[in-house]
């Protein structure tokens, strides 16, 4: 049964590469018109799932439909319904920005009458209009990324997949692009399927699926997910972390978790908890801070690991570096 309001339906999807199971029995449904976020650490299976939904990979088992069409049996209909900004570079760097967009407009059959205006619109959005006649090989890494986003938006697809779209872009450009995407969503009712490592971007989503080792471990709105954490996060820095964790367990019966910032304690009301804690803590305290839960904390709560471990700024740079090395290109 295909329900009209479910633009993507995934049922028991499995993808194996040899004996590695990249996607492990994933089931989910995306509603028409929503922003659906996909959150998970590196190698969780986000890109693999998207590739299957976009007909670039065949599932090992399970089914998926997009816009009512099966992604294996009705590939052409599925392709007509979607747009995709790939995680990895996908431009023809020997051609100019305009020629890249013209190619795209051609294969997606954008009517000639609106082609020119559309191209101008998206190129101005990403502030590349002045550079439209330059070959992409002379673009910087961020400019290439912006062009790819412009291209993904060019044909106003029913479902837009954004696989870490704003990786490596400066804050102004990111907020610019988000404004446009949200406007597009409002005006055209586009459904957006998004993966990102930026928590502020994930918060834009109506619903988020958290994926780890190919399995979906939670699926809810960002607020509901954060409520699962229970309350506020108090982070303390101490002279002896182990002793501190033991002491917290003994006095408050709370299982504190250690992460890169220090020891995280989840409490109902942070403001009231801090004085109680600080008053009579035996282990030496170096610092206390309080914050509302983030999606990071949700992931930590669910898996006991940090999602950021491998996805912080440093890792991002490392990844781009190895990518550009693999291409023999310059550091972007």
């Amino acid at each position, binding site marked *: 049964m295909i329900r009209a309001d479910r633009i993507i339906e995934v049922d028991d999807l499995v993808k194996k590469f040899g004996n590695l199971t990249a996607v492990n029995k994933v089931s989910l449904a995306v509603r028409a018109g929503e922003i659906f976020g996909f959150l998970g650490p590196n190698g969780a299976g986000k890109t693999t799932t998207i590739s299957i939904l*976009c*007909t*670039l*990979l*065949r599932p090992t088992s399970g089914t998926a439909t997009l816009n009512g069409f099966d992604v294996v049996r009705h590939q*052409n209909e599925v*392709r*007509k319904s*979607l747009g*995709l900004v*790939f995680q*990895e*570079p*996908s*431009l*023809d*760097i*020997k*051609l100019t920005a305009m*020629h890249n967009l013209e*190619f*795209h407009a*051609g*294969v*997606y*059959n954008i009517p000639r009458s609106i082609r020119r205006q559309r191209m101008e619109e998206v190129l101005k959005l990403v502030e590349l209009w002045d550079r439209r006649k330059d*070959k992409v090989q002379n673009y910087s890494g961020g400019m290439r990324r912006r062009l790819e986003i412009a*291209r993904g938006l060019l044909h106003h697809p029913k479902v837009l997949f954004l696989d870490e779209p704003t990786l490596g872009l400066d804050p102004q450009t990111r907020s610019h692009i988000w404004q446009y995407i949200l406007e597009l969503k409002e005006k055209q009712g586009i459904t957006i399927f998004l993966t990102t490592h930026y928590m502020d971007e994930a918060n834009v989503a109506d619903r988020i699926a958290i994926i780890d080792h190919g399995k979906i471990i939670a699926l809810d709105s960002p607020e509901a997910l954060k409520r699962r954490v229970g309350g506020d996060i108090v982070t303390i820095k101490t002279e002896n972390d182990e002793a501190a964790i033991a002491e917290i367990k003994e006095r408050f019966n709370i299982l504190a978790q250690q992460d890169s910032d220090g020891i995280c304690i989840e409490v109902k009301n942070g403001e009231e908890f801090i004085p109680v804690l600080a008053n009579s803590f035996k282990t030496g305290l170096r610092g206390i801070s309080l914050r509302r839960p983030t999606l990071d904390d949700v992931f930590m709560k669910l898996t006991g690991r940090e999602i950021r471990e491998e996805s912080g700024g440093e890792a991002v740079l490392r990844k781009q570096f190895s990518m550009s090395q693999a*291409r023999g290109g310059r550091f972007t």
Partner: protein
Amino acid sequence: MNNLRAVYIIWYRDLLRFWNDKTRFIGSLITPFFFLVIFGTGIGSALAGQFGDGTMDYKQFMYPGILGMVVLMNATMSGMSIVWDREFGFLKEVLVAPISRSAVAIGKALGGTTIATAQGVLMLVFIPYVGVNVSAAGIFTLIAVMFVFAMSVTSLGILIASRIRSIEAFQLVMQLMLFPLLFLSPALFPAGTLPPWLGIIVKMNPVSYGIDAMRQAVLGVEQTAMFGLELFGYRMPIILNLAVLAAFGAIMAALAVRSFRTQE
């Protein structure tokens, strides 16, 4: 209609890229220049008028062979560009687009064929240097043969590119295929005077028929009688040569489209 448009767009992009890369266009003339002018002169003077019945220069004999060589070499570039597109990610943009894979493969094949044929046609500037008179019909035959040559090898390249992921492996495989195709043909030596073991291999090579057709077109049917390719004791006329070559090209193109369609 949609498919035709897709074929056109893929073809157009290949031509655009080629047009942007003038160095390649000119650079591709350098190797054949060396073959024709240096190798041709060297072998020609070693034979010192002893070649064939003595009325023909070796340079003139090898010229059609060199034309074939140029087209074959350049035709591998199309498959190469698929491997490059995969490496640089552009292939994903193509494969996720709502156009049929067959249309993509055909567009690629036609793009590569057009470019390789154009480079073959550029080689016709050597006609005065070689010193032959080629009729209009001869030129037409040459272009037809070059086109089918280009299509066969372009298709072969696409077939291999749809199965091979690395640039190095692709180059290696293409060279392993191309050199036998060229050297086991009458491109550089006459087919008529070969020892039987080599003669049989040459006759099994589809490229031989194309080279023979071009030679007849450039040098004339009578003049090449003593070098002519014979099948079951019959001298192959141009038209039959073309038919053999076209059959080969059609098989290659069909295999390429099928292979490209089923790749992941």
